[in-house]
């Protein structure tokens, strides 16, 4: 469904990541791994359309999305950035309801139907209690869940997140990942940048290793992502260990001090 072909992205005429190619299908969780400043955010901004591709293209189905309007994009791709808008004191429901914008006529406001969809999305994530809470006063974890609910209300097929678990406490990281997993189970495609290789090892259907201006695609990271890849990626000594938990094998990534 998503085909990225020879995509080069960067600012002005300075390319940061070049010749990126990968595909994605419904239900995929694609993890972008790479050191700070490697270009994960640049790649993400190009995928969502906030930066123009320098070369190459992004196809959805057989359409190049370069010429799509923001409205058309929003129905297919939702984006959760690292930063949050906090100038005005919107409620949780206001924010989720804004996910419906692309379905509204130019001069219309959300209908009761839109509101129902927004509330359903919040219910799915069990955050109905945040309905009337002020968004800018929420904790990082609550805000992240509200944004995920917004993406669900947006009914897009692809959800792209820039470090969704950054700044979250241990519990909220797991909650967020569980819900992202749930989104994937429902047929959404999740693309996320992350600093935790374990997320790729346990949830990822694909890992993109971003370094030195290039991207290496690892299919089925659970099987194919090796210690050596991570050593090369982060320039540190790490070891992937297997833990047996009941009848399931869990892979962990341990630093070697």
């Amino acid at each position, binding site marked *: 469904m998503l085909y990225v072909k020879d995509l080069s992205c960067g600012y002005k005429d300075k390319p940061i990541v070049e010749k990126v190619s990968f595909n994605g299908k419904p239900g995929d969780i694609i993890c972008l791994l790479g050191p700070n400043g490697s270009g994960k955010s640049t790649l993400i*901004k190009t995928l*969502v*359309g*906030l930066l123009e591709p320098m070369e190459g293209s992004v196809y959805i189905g057989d359409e190049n999305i370069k010429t799509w*309007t*923001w*409205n*058309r*994009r*929003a*129905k297919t*791709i*939702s*984006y959760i*950035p690292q*930063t*949050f*808008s906090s*100038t*005005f*004191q*919107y*409620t949780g*429901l*206001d924010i989720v309801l*804004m*996910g419906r*914008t*692309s379905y*509204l006529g*130019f*001069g*219309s*406001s*959300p209908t*009761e139907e839109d*509101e129902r969809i927004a509330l359903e999305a919040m219910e799915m994530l069990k955050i109905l209690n945040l309905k009337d809470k002020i968004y800018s006063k929420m904790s990082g974890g609550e805000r992240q869940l509200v944004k995920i609910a*917004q993406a669900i209300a*947006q009914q897009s097929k692809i959800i792209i997140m820039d470090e969704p678990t950054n700044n979250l406490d241990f519990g909220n990281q797991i909650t967020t990942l569980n819900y992202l997993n749930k989104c994937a189970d429902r047929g959404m495609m999740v693309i996320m940048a992350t600093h935790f290789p374990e997320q790729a090892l346990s949830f990822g259907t694909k890992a993109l290793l971003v370094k030195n201006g290039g991207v290496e695609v690892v299919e089925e990271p659970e099987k194919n992502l090796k210690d050596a890849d991570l050593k090369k990626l982060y320039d540190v000594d790490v070891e992937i260990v297997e833990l047996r938990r009941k009848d399931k094998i869990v892979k962990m990534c341990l630093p070697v001090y």
Partner: protein
Amino acid sequence: MIKTKKKHYVYIFTIILILVFFISFGIGRYPVNVVQLLKVLLSKFFPIDKDWPDTINTIVFQVRLPRIIGAMLVGTSLSLSGAVYQGMFKNPLVSPDILGVSSGAAFGAALAIYLSFNTVGIQITSFIFGLIAVGLVYLISTKIKEDPIISLVITGVLVGSIFTALTSLIKYLADTDDKLPTITFWLMGSLASISPRDIKAIVLPILLGIIPLFILRWRLNVLSLEEGEAKTLGLNTARLRIIVIMCSTLMTAASVSVSGMIGWIGLVIPHLSRMIVGPDYRILLPTTLLLGSTYLLLIDNIARGLTTVEIPLGILTSLVGAPFFIILLLTNKRS
């Protein structure tokens, strides 16, 4: 809808505005009582036997009605402009006067008076210079790498002061017997000399500003988010921003062209409204409209009723607005 619980504010503020509207007719040197007023007003629509002096007719229709409508229109325009500028710039500290739009519009109007343009000419020149001012502020502030909220305010002050200086230049060049007094008095901010003709001239541009903003009020919410978020939610931010700037500058210029510089209202009223009903433009815009017109009507009543000599309106709004701004500055960082 969830917002129904907040809708009652709109009803309450509408009732207050209607009350203040009628009370305002009774304020002034020449007494007009309620019965007379109702009869005079109704006589426009129904055949009522005239049992009141002609003076009352003149006072109600030629003096007080234009002034009351003028105060409401100007109050509404400046407050709504403030409310939408704040959202668009994602900055709660801006308003038409702080952004320099009022100064730009005032310079345009002063220039037009100096060149003996007619009312429409004054409005158009005022609108053009208002647009130039807000355009300059927007361009310059995006180049400043400091705190965006404060740098926008500072840029606004700078651009405003350039236009104020240019206005002073016009005053310096103006004919001291005729045009200088007109420009000076008008700049102080007053509705004292407003005529039915002025009202007719500004109604259309103000409605042209208000109506699109009301139609697009849901989108204004999305526009007040971070740029990237707004776009990826499906909003054509560039197009909407142009519409918003056009509408609010049009309203500001129309107001400035008849009432001169009435400061601070565009900052105070949107804040007050947001405190009461929250930031959702669906309810914020009607509330701002109602409170803005009520506020300026009240202040204008004080201006003309408090002492035997009329106090220029701009002075009163500044005395209320500037301290309010200081409080906002002091509390903004902490929240």
